[in-house]
């Protein structure tokens, strides 16, 4: 009996060895489907209201009570051939005081904290360090209006929910050279002289394309919902004037057709830059930000005094 078992095992061993050798001696990688892979173009339609919606959304983000604090997360990802360089940012904004940034640049993490006139930066090597002054002032909404000169060419993409919030999707495409020339902003004013001074840079910009997509919230609130909301914000809803002022400040816009108030926060913002790079083809660079959990009671930032304690710890 024992002998028979052993022989059966020997046979099993032979089978295993055969499979083993088959695996180790070679395999093939058959081809997948031999077809070109076209890039799909989305359905678009003209968007005459793009300029107006951009302004409304920026104003809503600027003034609405709910937009005074929120979470954000985003990145700049540059793809040049096999090299991909990312910078990533996430954290919270608490207006008008400050923000916290958990950042990575080129896969190296660091953190940045701002509260009023207090600025701290953390790297693994240095720990938390106090900085003297800020280099770029806090202004989370800066830059959105810089797209206004191109709003007349915007198109509307199919509506899309972002984190279950229904959004209107607007897209603007521009050539790199006209983007730099027409966009009235201090950053590009500085850069224009550099472009003119550098042989070949204009050709680079002529062949650059930029495509910006903005997801603007399109949420509806009934009159009752708005009154509840206002009441939660200590508004005396029996006082029509006070209520109207609050509605006005929060940019809640009455839609007669649907008999609801509309609210237009910015939920997502993405820009692709396709740009020639010397000796390395063209770069695809994505700048992406998402804004979420508006007015989240969980948003808490340490006070500067608490940050100072970190410095003492480090010391």
């Amino acid at each position, binding site marked *: 009996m*024992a002998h028979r078992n052993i022989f059966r095992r020997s046979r*099993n*061993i032979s089978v*295993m060895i055969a499979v*083993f*050798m088959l*695996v180790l001696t*070679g395999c*093939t*990688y*058959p*081809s997948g489907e*031999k*077809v*070109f*892979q*076209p890039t799909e173009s989305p359905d678009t339609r003209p968007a005459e209201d793009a300029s107006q919606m951009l302004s409304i959304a920026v104003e809503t983000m600027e003034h609405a009570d709910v937009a005074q604090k929120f979470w954000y997360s985003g990145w*700049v990802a*540059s*793809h*040049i*051939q*096999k*090299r*991909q360089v990312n*910078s990533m*940012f996430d954290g919270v904004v608490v207006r008008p005081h400050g923000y916290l*940034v958990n950042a990575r*640049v*080129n896969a190296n993490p*660091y953190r940045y904290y701002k509260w009023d006139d207090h*600025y701290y930066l953390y790297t693994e*090597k240095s720990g938390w360090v106090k900085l003297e002054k*800020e*280099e770029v002032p806090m202004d989370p*909404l*800066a*830059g*959105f209006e*810089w*797209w206004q000169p191109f709003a007349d060419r915007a198109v509307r993409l199919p509506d899309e929910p972002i984190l279950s919030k229904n959004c209107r999707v607007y897209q603007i495409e521009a050539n790199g050279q006209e*983007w730099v020339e027409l966009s009235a902003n201090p950053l*590009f004013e500085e*850069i224009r002289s550099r472009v003119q001074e*550098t*042989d*070949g840079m204009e050709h680079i910009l002529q*062949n650059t394309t*930029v495509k910006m997509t903005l997801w603007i919230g399109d949420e509806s609130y009934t009159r009752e919902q708005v009154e509840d909301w206002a009441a939660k914000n200590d508004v005396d809803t029996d006082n029509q004037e006070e209520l109207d002022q609050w509605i006005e400040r929060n940019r809640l816009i009455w839609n007669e057709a649907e008999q609801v108030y509309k609210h237009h926060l910015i939920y997502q*913002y993405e820009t692709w830059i396709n740009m*020639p*790079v*010397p*000796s*390395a*083809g*063209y770069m*695809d*660079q994505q700048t992406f*930000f998402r804004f979420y959990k508006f007015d989240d009671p969980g948003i808490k930032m340490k006070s500067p005094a608490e940050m100072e304690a970190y410095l003492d710890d480090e010391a």
Partner: protein
Amino acid sequence: MSKLLSFSKWILFAVYLYFTYHLLVTPLILDLSYLGIILVSGSLLLLIGTIPRRYRRQVLVFGILFLLMDKSFYNMDKAEWSVWLLVLGAIPVILLVAGIGKWYGKLPATALVALIVAALLTIPLMPRNEVPLLSHFMKKWTSEPLYTGKMFDYFPLAVQDVNGDGKDEIITLGNVDETEPLAEGEQEDKDYRLPTEPIYLYVLAWNGKAMERLDEDSYDPNEIGNRLPKDDPGFPYYVWSDNALRPTISRQELAEGMLQFGTAPFRAMALNIENISEQLKQSGGVLDAADQLEHGNGFHDIRIENGNVSGYIHDHYFELPTTATTIVDGIRLPEGKEGLLLLGNDLEILTHDSEGNPVISHRLTRQMLKNVAASEFSVADADGDGADEILVSSSYSRIFKPLTGGEWDILWTATDTNFRFEDVASISDTNREELISLSESEVIIHPDRFHLRFLTGYEYDPEQGLKRNWRSFISLINVRAGDIDGDGDNELVASIYKTHRIYVLERHHLPVQATLLITTIILAGYAITRRIRYGAS
């Protein structure tokens, strides 16, 4: 004496286990996934069954503890701890293993000593990440990390004959000879800019025993530096100038600037322009230039400048408007025509008509191939018909064949998004050119996040696709083939991601895996015979 013999036997067992685990067991699982796990488990149960009962626990405990201990020491070594920290880390591991081995495994003292000695010796002699190489290669030489900083994960690498001595040299970048490591606790940058990283050209040549850095006076650094594949580490936050990668922004400005959310793409564009204009200043506005092409044909002295590509087809000068930025290589087209492969937003082949005028004969557009920007292109005659194909490495790796009349044929497409062609050279004893590639295993270790690619040699077969000649389950990057030692056979030069170590690998033709398998069979046969003769006790 008997103790020495016992110690030796346990050491031998550890050596056998170590190589079998990394060269037979792991490849089987990585290649066959669940089937591999079933096969390995089945074989293991069978083998355990052949061990006499009174030794079974000892052998199992020894095997498991040895593999775990080796992994633990390897991780500690990889963490680049100081010597004291290493000693402090190793002591509890040794005590724990010795405790389990002695009280649960009932291992004799000689086995415990063998267990610890073997696990400690693997790190200096043959660390576990290098063992998979042995299936087809011998490690001929390994460098120390050539770069001492933390900002960059890898640098480009080329293998070419720099000094005309008939041997290929390794060209890469580093700074280990030039920079002093920062002292413990020293701050890297007091002004919180990103650190400036001095980076120098490293040309390494074989001196008969090891690779040695060539004296910079013995070559023209500009000319040799241009042979490196163009790379933009840290773009747009870093730009090359004067032997250094210099930051274009500080951490503070980057964080504060990005928190003006609407300005983020404008700031990215401003950095792009700053970076690219610095590159253009250094090149005098030339986007790319090549005197000779690797797949040399009639095209030479090519330049891309001011929206034109110019150069010579044999002795005939040509100039043509282009949006391309990059000269990829020369290419042999069907019917003996010569082409020049150019990369811009599209991939184009420039050739000449019957009157010698330059024309674009083929174009692969972004509409035909996704992810052109993140792709790399190389030229090789994969099907051996005398005309070249284009190997595309990206998340959509493919082999394209230019046909007459501007048409394309797709010879092969990858079915996973991680496959990459690295080089084309003869590595096997067949003397036929192989597509040296990095391909993923059947086992996806971390879906969507972390794909290990393994070194594989393929040949193209029109019927079957890519036929695998060999595979070593080691995850390498920047793999290049070249005759480093001048013996007429190609070696492989490569690096491991983020280590900045260069490996020179020599192909051997020893049946390593078959030998291990046969050893296992003989041992199993011996154990089975013993069991038949003496029974399970």
